[in-house]
């Protein structure tokens, strides 16, 4: 097995025992990148020189016998929506093609304190708007399990690179499912922590009240390690919450006896792919077989989640993206007739179709005369969706659902139909509205060989319970150990 195929916690033991060096590990990942990245296209920017410097520094620490953090020397990829000081951060948009932030996001500062090796910046839907990563202004990312299929989105690059072993772990961002859905579609672990758990400072905003940073990993243990590194309140983010951050590795207990798992009936409709329904039911049966209590629950306002999401998120986005005007940084049309023309041309030329569509939807939803019917009504619906969950968590510890209603679809299959595309988020947006922690773990494969994800949701700040159930599931199955054919065939399929 190449080093690039291993998990962070296994690699940490090897680094600590000085069986391997961080430089060897980093070289192994870059060798894999040379091999498969031309087919996967998960990265927008690679920072090999910087990575080797960081690996060297970690090696010095290990050689000196220092007490090195769990992520020291671990090669990690970063979604290109997270600001990285001195490294181009484009949000996969033409409008930020040349933008190099003079500051690090808080999560980057925290990861650098751990001594990580940053591999590069990953592809995504422009400004995190999309469910397939096809909205990138630069490239299409391919699903390592089927190069003709999308990897999911918007954090498709971050999911694909972990799946393809071109990164050990990665960071993504989840607004309406942008971590969980691509994790499911690429057969990796992906977690969105509770809203407020992780600082958003330096995360380029799409929808501020929903955005949250989280990890993609090869197993639940690595997920806990990254959470340990990135969680915590931040003086730079007023919406980060000052609650105790536990050692999440303490939740890695292979035991769910006494835990109640709720199965919301609203998620198992005819729209759900039959094979997905089957794999998820099988997964729930596994949890039941090892001692969990399973009961059906109802989340009655689930059906409004998508409509609500596609008002609130664009409304906030319409303001968040107003700053890209060509005045201070980023793309600017150089031959405008006047100021208004500069705004119009700059934004028309450098934003993609989906971004423009959402800015228009959001601007409309906030307009005088329409705000009550759209934005305010959506806020009310959001409150109802949240109270559904509050009531449910009175009765159960964790809620289990499919992560995505379908497996990865073919590239280009849904680009012509935005509504069809928006339905990809039907399983993930409700928890986003409620700010809940949610994880997607691999729970099997459909006939065609594409992975299926099991979504586990917890009450706010109940990450520990979610991790415990996920870990128990993982310990009793081997889906997470499966590698895409692109790996097992020793070459590109």
């Amino acid at each position, binding site marked *: 097995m190449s080093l690039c195929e291993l998990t962070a916690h296994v690699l940490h033991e090897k680094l600590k025992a000085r069986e391997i060096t961080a430089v060897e590990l980093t070289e192994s990942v870059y060798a894999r990148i040379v091999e498969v990245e031309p087919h996967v296209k998960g990265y927008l920017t690679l920072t090999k020189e910087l990575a080797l410097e960081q690996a060297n520094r970690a090696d010095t620490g290990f050689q000196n016998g220092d007490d090195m953090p769990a992520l020291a020397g671990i090669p990690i990829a970063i979604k290109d929506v997270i600001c990285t000081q001195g490294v181009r951060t484009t949000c996969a948009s033409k409008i930020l093609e040349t933008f190099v932030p003079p500051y690090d996001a808080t999560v980057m500062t925290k990861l650098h304190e751990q001594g990580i090796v940053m591999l590069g910046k990953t592809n995504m839907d422009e400004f995190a708007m999309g469910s397939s990563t096809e909205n990138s202004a630069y490239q299409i990312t391919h699903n390592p399990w089927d190069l003709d299929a999308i990897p999911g989105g918007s954090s498709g690059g971050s999911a694909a690179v972990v799946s393809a072993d071109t990164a050990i772990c990665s960071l993504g961002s989840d607004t309406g499912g942008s971590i969980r859905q691509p994790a499911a579609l690429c057969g990796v672990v992906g977690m969105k922590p509770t809203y407020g758990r992780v600082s958003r400072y330096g995360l380029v905003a799409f929808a501020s009240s929903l955005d949250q940073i989280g990890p993609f990993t090869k197993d639940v243990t690595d997920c806990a390690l990254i959470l340990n590194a990135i969680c915590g309140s931040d003086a730079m983010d*007023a*919406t980060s919450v000052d609650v105790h951050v536990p050692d999440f590795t303490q939740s890695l207990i292979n035991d769910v006896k006494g835990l109640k798992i709720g199965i919301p009936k609203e998620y198992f409709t005819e729209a759900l792919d039959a094979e997905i329904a089957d794999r998820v039911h099988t997964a729930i049966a596994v949890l039941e077989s090892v001692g969990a209590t399973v009961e059906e629950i109802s989340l009655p306002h689930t059906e409004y989640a998508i409509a609500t999401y596609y008002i609130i998120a664009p409304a906030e986005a319409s*303001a968040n993206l107003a700053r890209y005007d060509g005045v201070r940084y980023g793309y600017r049309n150089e031959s405008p007739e006047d100021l208004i023309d500069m705004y119009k041309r700059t934004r028309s030329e450098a934003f993609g179709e989906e971004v423009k569509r959402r800015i228009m939807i959001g601007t409309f939803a906030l307009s005088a005369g329409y705000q009550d019917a759209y934005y305010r009504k959506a806020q009310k619906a959001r409150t109802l969706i949240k109270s559904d969950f509050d009531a449910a968590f009175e009765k159960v510890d964790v809620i289990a659902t499919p992560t995505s209603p379908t497996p990865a679809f073919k590239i280009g299959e849904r680009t012509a139909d935005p509504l069809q595309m928006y339905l990809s988020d039907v399983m993930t947006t409700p928890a986003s509205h409620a700010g809940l922690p949610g994880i997607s773990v691999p729970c099997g494969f459909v006939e065609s060989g594409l992975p299926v994800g099991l979504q586990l949701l917890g009450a706010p700040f109940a990450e520990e319970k979610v991790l415990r159930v996920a870990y128990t599931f993982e310990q009793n199955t081997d889906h997470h150990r499966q590698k895409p054919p692109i790996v097992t065939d020793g070459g590109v399929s």
Partner: protein
Amino acid sequence: MEEYEIVIGLEIHAELCTESKLFCNCAYTFGASANDCTCPICLGMPGTLPVVNRRAVEFAVRAGLAMGCEITASSKFDRKNYFYPDLPKNYQISQYDIPLCQSGQVTFEFEGEPRTVALRRIHLEEDAGKSIHAEVTGDPTRSFMDFNRAGVPLLEIVSEPELHSPAEAIAYCRAVKEILEYIEVSDCNMEEGSLRCEPNLSLRPKGSKELGTRTEIKNKNSFQELIEAMEYEVRRQARILDAGEEVVQETLLFDASTGKTVAMRGKEEADDYRYFPEPDLVHVQISGEWVKEIQPTLPELPAARRERFISDYDISPENAEFLTSTRPIAEFFDEAARRSGEPTTCANWIMGDLTRLLNTAEIEIQDAKVTPAHLNELIHLIADATISGKIAKSVLDDAFETGKMPKEIVAEKGLAQITDTSEIEAIVLQVVEDNPGPAQDYRDGTKKAIGFLVGQVMRATRGKANPQLVNQILTRVLSTE
């Protein structure tokens, strides 16, 4: 021609003099090089977030309490969306439907009568940067931006439309300015733009209850311009109404060079600001305990202090006005009056010689080396006849220059009055001998001739002889000889 009643309301924007901006740690200094007082947050760079400066909230609460407002226990910030190059995020973080302070009132004196104007609200928002155009750069093909002021906390104080003349509106603005200066939350420097008064003005037929269509006037940097702008606007609207036409609701810009207002933007282009709650911030919580902590730190406000000076110190209303014109002057006077027990004398010294010295030196009272302790000592030196009033003036000059205490100056320069009668008598006899003419005139009944002789004695003692003693001795000497 119809007689109109003028109806004016005011929006006053005051920049708060907090150490840092409203949502970041940048310090703002007026006149700093362009964009020197900026950081990624106030430049609206991608991924940056605002965090509310508690100090700015405290300042707003101070202002609210000083103006009798209700302090909102849980208020929120909202985004006000509009595109303008001086606005880094193309939205301004402001407060829409739940401002920090609600209702309230400002009381001031107008034409000798007390007036109270109700406030609608006071809220906090961030200031914008400024564009630098061809008139500064000489390059008509491009404009530059200076974001130093972007993000500076602004207090917006909105009055009800209860003012009925430009002069009354100015009196109200002065009262608000005075309060803000007194509670030390704003420099209120109109020329530097830290205080901006924007009137909205309409006319209605006398006796009518309905409000006429109003116009808003922007961008004035002195009370002089503000009053000219309002007076012009009153005449302009009256002409329109007289002609049977309708006033258009619009925002006007006053051009001081022409003395006219010109339309900035009309209602047909009225912006839809698409306000919505700022998702990057949580509600601003102001506990009753916090308000209770802030309340006692408020100084006595000018109106109350004026009243107290008149009643406790027996100061005339005009003098009380002068002595409360700034908080440092009022505090100087208050302390000097308390120490010396001679409020009238203190007032005379402060309004007379001390003000003259301050004006010449072009400094403010709080920056002077002379303190209430100096004034107190000086007054006592006069009272116990150590020095004369005239010598006291020169002692004050000296103290103003050096900061030395009056007693020290008197001792160093030997300025103490001669009160030894035998010493004075010797000089008197010498003066009478040297000036037989005036001495004879006095004896012949020309009593005022004594003035000359007193002058000669004072000259001979370089002003140090006690004038009362000189007078007594001279009178005795002249009548006995």
